[in-house]
């Protein structure tokens, strides 16, 4: 994944404040935190000389679309499908106690946040993830149980 410095390099670096932030660096940080998107910087969006950067930044955040609300990213190359995160994820346990909660195949995948497909974990229904929504908490169930750091929140 990228970091704020890399994003900053792609911005106009004029500190014009049109985005509502005090500087381009502050805007980059807001991008990382997913508070703002590339569209919120008018020069970047409108001026043709920034076209390439605009598309690149938009693309970067598209990659993790579907996970953007919670910022959950799965590194598919690292994940080997052990299922630790699936079995430890609190909403998974609550919604399917005798299936994944007990180490078994899911009885109903529709309400699960994490499932294993073709040997790799897939994140879905992120509305159920404890990191999401009004009562969100900094759950780290899927991070501490992963042997290879394949799940990350950005």
């Amino acid at each position, binding site marked *: 994944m990228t970091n704020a410095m890399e994003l900053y390099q792609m911005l106009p670096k004029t500190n014009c404040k049109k985005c509502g932030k005090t500087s381009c660096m502050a805007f980059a940080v807001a991008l990382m935190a997913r508070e703002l998107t590339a569209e919120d910087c008018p020069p970047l969006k409108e001026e043709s000389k920034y076209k390439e950067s605009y598309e690149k930044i938009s693309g970067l955040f598209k990659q993790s679309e579907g996970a953007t609300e919670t910022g959950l990213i799965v590194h598919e190359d690292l994940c080997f499908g*052990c299922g630790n995160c699936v079995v430890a994820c609190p909403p998974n346990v609550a919604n399917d106690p005798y299936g994944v*909660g007990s180490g078994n195949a899911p009885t109903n995948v529709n309400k699960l946040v994490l499932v294993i497909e073709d040997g790799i974990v897939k994140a879905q229904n992120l509305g159920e993830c404890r990191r999401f929504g009004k009562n969100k908490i900094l759950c780290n169930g899927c991070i501490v149980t992963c042997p290879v750091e394949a799940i990350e929140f950005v």
Partner: protein
Amino acid sequence: MEKNYYVCTGCGMLCDDIEVESEKNIVNKVYTACRVGVAHMKEGKESAAFRIDNKPVDEATAISEAAAILKNAKNPLIFGLGTSTNETQKLAIELAKKASATLDDTSSFCLGRVVEALLHNRFKVCTLDDVRNKADVTIFWGADPSDSHPRHLSKHSYFPRGTEKQRGWEEERTAIAIDVRKSHTAKICGNHFFQIPPGGDAEFIDALIAALAGKLPKTSYNFPPKRILELANILKGAKFGVVFVGLGLIYSLENIEPLVRLMDALNGKANFHLIPMVGHYNMRGFNETLFEETGYVNSVKFEDGTVKHGPEYSIVESLKAKTVDAALIIGSDPLSSLPRSVSKNLLEIPVISMDPCETLTSRNAKVYINTAISGVESGGSATRMDGVKVNFKPVVETTRLSDEAVLKKIMEAL
């Protein structure tokens, strides 16, 4: 709706909750299995292959050549069978009797001694389901299931809820890793990881036994006694403990007596069971089947209706001493897995290789028979690492013969 589950034969866990989508006998999608299992299930190829001296031949020619090799040999070696069904293993024993063969499997240089001891009731044992339902303390010793048996922790040993473990792993379970390196499993165990030097297992066992008895634990490598005492305290408090014994521990012990002493000491203070971390999906099945038949788990020689047993009948020793004059290798690749100094003697005798995959052994074999992948393209029964029998059906169909069918044909041709 009742779901249609398959069994994965990718490792000794024999996970029985795998959903598969397939079309025209090709596996498209696999659910719940780990990456190892998915690769195993998608391995299938279509065409049958029979080869002599690496040249394609028909089935009848390959079978009769294989039978001729066994017939002409005075002491053929039959080896492998860790990825064959119980039914195939029984046939192989019959074949070994008929051909006056030496019969052995990989357990003679890995976990055989442990399985033998537990079949002689020297350890208290339990099933993986008991572990899930009851275990509060688990030790992974010289084992890294996160790599070798990827779903071990999630399906049985650490993370799942069980009938008597409803509050979850953080509150109700303690996982401990004892190993020479910080493995992926050790990482999960966090502060309960005890790193010992290579070969330091026997001393660590003695130190732990001392600590359990309230004495000061000492090791020549100065492992902090305080930490061993802490470990002993955790173990003493276990209501249902399990020791998962891996290759790392077995390779470092000259014999299993220290392990027997440790289990006895643990059971003097608490309640501890042992499960061997069997890698191949049915190595334990081979050990049990042969044990029922002969009283031994591996390394036997059949002759005139009698059976002899000893290290000299293991694959390593019999190849070293050049006492075997032909070999039938089933689902194993000793040319890659044994040290060169031993395996090179295989190149001097006629070898029949039966394997779903091409291997170094199959490429150097006189006769090669490409068999169906057991558990994916052919069914049967097997014995899980904890001794539980598991039946399975094939996931897809193939034109290739199962190893069971090939052995039957060789028997008939003999």
